[in-house]
């Protein structure tokens, strides 16, 4: 790595040094309480998978380049120069961390490992050493926001094809009504889905059953910018949806079952004239207000458990709503962890699932403890409310032969709808 490159990367590092980040960099006492927090360490007990060890990889570079200590007496804190080898270490740390923040519950100070890993991810982006596919996907999303007209026709045609399926399956009246409204100005609710029928069809059925005045977003919710840890791209991807919501003057933006999208939208969109909800929260509200009715017949005789997606539950605060919904769907619901803060990550967060086959082996090995946690519940149906989690849990189901029926919570609600 030449001097210029190093300086450029350190400038990127500098942009991350807000107050909270400095707290996290300065404070770790390396007490080791976080050791057993990480599902990766639990499944493969190697020191490099301990949260404090991952953090120290970033911290060593901080000490070397941003602290007098690292210049005067580098061996004191094992300060380390930013080199190619250091970048490789950063990669290994950041892309074996799913950003679930379970370790933050263990840490006596509450150090946020996901935040420290965001430095590693940003440096990798700066050095063009990040997983390219994530940047490509992020750029595709951004491009779609820039040249919507180009995508519009194809999108609308796709939506038309889905409408028929909604009507067929749920026998919803469709006379004179659009089953999947798009681009409706003044709608109450903007639903931001994923690119995939499974994310649109059941949601449309529930919205229509509830008589919601809704409209479907042109954009997919997922934020690859957040996965790859690029704040600029994250913001650009987010802004597409914010601008659409403002243009349509909606009162609520409802994010589909995607943990990252929900947390980014909820926490990063700033003060806006609309509120941000997850589809789980909206469905719970419909049930509470009696706007939809569901029957327990659809899952009769099944034992149901629920996997809390980290970004929605521990990091997003949607904890009661899925349980409230499941009470209406089954009489046999079993918790995975006595305290939902301690629920293990599925092992697919932080962009690992988006990296597909490349990470499959690691994902399966590192989430052994998750598979065991699920198995212990004795459940036959494993519900979750996040696309990433669903993919990863389905992979785990296959890999460990768990024999589970892995379900999206929205699909379960849609399947159990009582349409009068």
């Amino acid at each position, binding site marked *: 790595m030449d001097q210029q490159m190093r300086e450029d990367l350190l400038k990127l590092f500098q942009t991350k040094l*807000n*107050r909270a980040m400095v707290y*996290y960099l300065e404070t770790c006492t390396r007490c080791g309480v976080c050791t057993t927090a990480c599902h990766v360490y639990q499944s493969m007990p190697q020191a490099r998978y301990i949260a*404090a*060890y991952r953090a120290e990889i970033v911290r060593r570079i901080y000490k070397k380049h941003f602290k007098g200590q690292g210049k005067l007496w580098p061996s004191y*804190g094992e300060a380390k120069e930013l080199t190619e080898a250091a970048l490789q270490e950063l990669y290994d740390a950041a892309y074996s961390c799913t950003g679930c923040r379970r370790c933050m519950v263990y840490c*006596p100070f*509450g150090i946020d490992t996901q935040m420290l890993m965001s430095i590693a991810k940003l440096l990798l982006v700066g050095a063009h050493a990040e997983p390219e596919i994530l940047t490509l996907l992020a750029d595709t999303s951004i491009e779609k926001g820039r040249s919507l007209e180009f995508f519009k026709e194809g999108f609308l045609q796709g939506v038309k094809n889905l409408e028929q399926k909604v009507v067929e399956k749920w026998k919803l009246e469709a006379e004179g009504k659009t089953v999947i409204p798009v681009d409706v100005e003044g709608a109450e609710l903007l639903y931001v889905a994923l690119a995939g029928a499974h994310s649109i069809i059941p949601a449309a059925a529930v919205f229509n059953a509830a008589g919601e005045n809704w409209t479907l977003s042109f954009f997919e919710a997922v934020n690859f910018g957040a996965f790859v840890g690029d704040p600029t791209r994250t913001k650009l991807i987010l802004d597409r949806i914010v601008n659409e919501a403002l243009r349509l003057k909606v009162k609520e933006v409802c994010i589909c079952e995607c943990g990252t999208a929900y947390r980014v939208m909820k926490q990063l969109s700033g003060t806006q004239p609309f509120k941000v909800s997850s589809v789980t929260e909206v469905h719970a509200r419909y049930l509470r207000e009696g706007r939809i009715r569901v029957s327990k017949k659809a899952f009769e005789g099944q034992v149901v458990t629920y996997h809390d997606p980290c970004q929605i539950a521990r990091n997003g*605060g949607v904890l009661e709503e899925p349980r409230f919904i499941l009470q209406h769907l089954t009489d046999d619901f079993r918790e995975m962890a006595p305290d939902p803060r301690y629920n293990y990550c599925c092992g697919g967060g932080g962009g690992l699932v988006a990296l597909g086959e490349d990470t499959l082996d690691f994902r399966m090995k590192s989430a052994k403890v998750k598979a065991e946690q699920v198995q212990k519940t004795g459940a036959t149906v494993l519900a979750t409310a996040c696309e990433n989690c669903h993919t990863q849990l389905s992979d785990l189901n296959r890999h460990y032969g768990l024999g589970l029926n892995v379900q999206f919570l929205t699909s379960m609600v849609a399947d159990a709808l009582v349409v009068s």
Partner: protein
Amino acid sequence: MQTAYYLVLVPMVYAAFAVFVLGTVWRLVQTARRPAHPTTLQIFPKKEPAWLYAVGDTFLMPSIFRHSPVLWFFLAVFHVAVLLLIIGHLELFGDWPIFQLVPHEVFLGRGFVGLVAAVSVLYLFFRRFHAPVRDLSVPEDYYLLILLFLTIIFGSQMDWARRWYDYDVMGVSAYRAYLWSLVMLKPFVPDEILYSGHAFMLVLHVFFANLFLMVFPFTKMMHTFLALPMNLLRRG
């Protein structure tokens, strides 16, 4: 020799306090002036009042109690002992009615506070020789514990000599005279300190304490001040 003692007991003490106070304030101000993180960093579910839970997290360390009870025990003993030792040092400046609610001879605890502090530091030190903490530790972690141990052992030794072995040459009145002279900026080291056979114990205690104070603002010791604001972030 007396010159060396004097250098440690007077100029170095002033230097150490200056570095400690100015360094700590400078580092805290520098950190506080940085921009806040744009989003919440809390962990859910949120419990109210969040600040009270954050105070609880900081001073009772419930997560350590839950996941590593033995470590919690020694950490709790260590931190409480250090607090009592700090109170003991304040009492070397004069009588504090509030501390005498439990009537005692200075220092509190008949010498045992220093002993348990030293033992708990040894525990914290030796646990770093075992995996997985060994893999996480950096030299700083050992250096600071060694420095703390040396400070505590030489300091306690003087208490032990008085309490357990009837040593009475250097006593509280001599320390008071010495410490007040430092405060009044008219430094003076009483003869019973400077020429006592145990003087080197005091000098070593002060020397290591000086070193500790001087590195404090630039090391992980800053967790003393940052633990609470960090827990506030987590509690939201």
